[in-house]
């Protein structure tokens, strides 16, 4: 979205002489790690993930990681998988950790074969490692926002905590893979722990959210928050799949 805007303005100032320009740029792309070659199972699980109400991955470019299914590569119909993903509004750009046979199939299905990133050996180690360790490693970057988050704005802290040093207004969305801290009023929607982190929490100086969610468990606040918590510092955390709001 932002990229698009910038490009529009750019074209104001630069008169291009050639029709195209090729440049190398680094992108961070979401990776879909396959643990199975069963297309029905993959589709079902993806639908469950996408149905959690978060739209970050809609229209996202996606790389399929084949490291964990290397041995069953012959059973995998990459073209059909790309079709399923497309129906779910995910755009597959390529595969990685593909063996020679899978690489050939990928090219035939119109997918790029990506090199680099995590090597096969690393991927194998990681996939056998405990998941909590992996989130621990990922949870590092904290995003700090100094201005109010206004209606219609959406802020996502990928791989870390989100700290808002102002208010989150009605109609705004704040999202984090980790915790969310709001040092003003939280009046909009807050999604913490969207990377499956059930231990994530939401903190606010004044807790009046429209909706709060932790690791996909959400609650709408149709009724105003209890008067004991009205305008007071509070936190929201997950206890047995139920959101709990408590004073700080």
């Amino acid at each position, binding site marked *: 979205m*932002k990229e698009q*805007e*910038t490009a*529009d*303005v750019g074209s*104001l100032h630069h008169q291009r002489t050639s029709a195209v320009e090729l440049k190398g740029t680094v992108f961070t792309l979401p990776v879909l790690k396959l643990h199975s070659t069963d297309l029905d199972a993959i589709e079902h699980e993806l639908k469950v993930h996408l149905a959690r109400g978060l739209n970050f991955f809609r229209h996202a470019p996606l790389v399929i990681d084949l490291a964990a299914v290397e041995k069953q590569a012959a059973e995998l119909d990459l073209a059909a998988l790309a079709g399923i993903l497309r129906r779910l509004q995910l755009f597959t750009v390529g595969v990685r950790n593909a063996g020679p046979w899978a690489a050939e199939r990928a090219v035939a299905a119109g997918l790029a074969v990506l090199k680099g990133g995590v090597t096969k050996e690393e991927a194998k180690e990681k996939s056998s490692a405990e998941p909590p360790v992996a989130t621990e490693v990922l949870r590092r970057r904290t995003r700090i926002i100094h*201005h*109010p988050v*206004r*209606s*219609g*704005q959406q802020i996502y802290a990928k791989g870390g905590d989100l700290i808002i040093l*102002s*208010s989150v*207004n*009605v*109609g*705004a969305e704040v999202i984090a893979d980790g915790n969310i801290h709001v040092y003003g009023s939280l009046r909009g929607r807050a999604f913490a722990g969207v990377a499956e982190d059930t231990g994530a929490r939401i903190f606010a100086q004044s807790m009046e959210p429209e909706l709060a969610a932790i690791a996909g468990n959400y609650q709408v606040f149709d009724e105003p928050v209890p008067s004991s918590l009205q305008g007071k510092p509070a936190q929201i955390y997950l206890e047995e799949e139920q959101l709990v709001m408590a004073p700080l």
Partner: protein
Amino acid sequence: MSKVIVVTSGKGGVGKTTTSASFAAGLASRGHRTVVIDFDIGLRNLDLVMGCERRVVYDFVNVINEEASLKQALIRDKVDNNLYILPASQTRDKDALTQDKVGKVIGELRESFDYIVCDSPAGIEKGALMALFYADEALVVTNPEISSVRDSDRILGMLAAKSLRAIEGDEPIKEHLVVSRYSPERVQMGEMLSLDDIQELLGINLIGVIPESEEVLQASNSGVPVIRDERSKSGQAYQDMVARFLGEDVPMRFLEVEKKGFFSRIFGA
């Protein structure tokens, strides 16, 4: 150094055009060369409020399409030589505007005016985005009601994300809050949001509070910016607002419910 100021709100009918007309007239009356542009292509109103609707020959879209020069399209105000109006087209739509063409016109106006006031259409679509794109400062007009405040919040987000200053990473647009149609009586009765509520919700600097009054309607209908009606509270409130914009320290007026006078207290209202 010329300044581009957008008058915007998100919501319609809150007083953008009234504020644009009075703000521009106020700046001009203090000796600043000022032009006010109507960005509401297809629904032009500013010329009516400024009382120059019968003098519109060429409009903003003609200038954009290079069918007329700026000089031909600019209308000088009847009473103030410092004030010019660039009217909107009534027959075209907002697609006639493009970012680079609007930029060219604004660039040209910057050469001969101190202040360029852009009267934004309602909404958050193309027309409103065009009006705010080149702004240096913004007057965000809000009524003391929740839907108006919410829409202003949305437009503030747009100012912070979609303006040229935001995209180029320059110093952000300076935002000023104008609360119009303010009625102390109705605030006291709890029918309207209070100033504190609005400021708490929007978190920007308050530059003016315009009381609800009949003079605004009368002035609009007779084609005179209400700021020129020196007896009306709204006119005085706009004068104060212009003074504050120019850096003067003027206390807010007309915020309290008027106390009844001696006679009306004795004889009843």
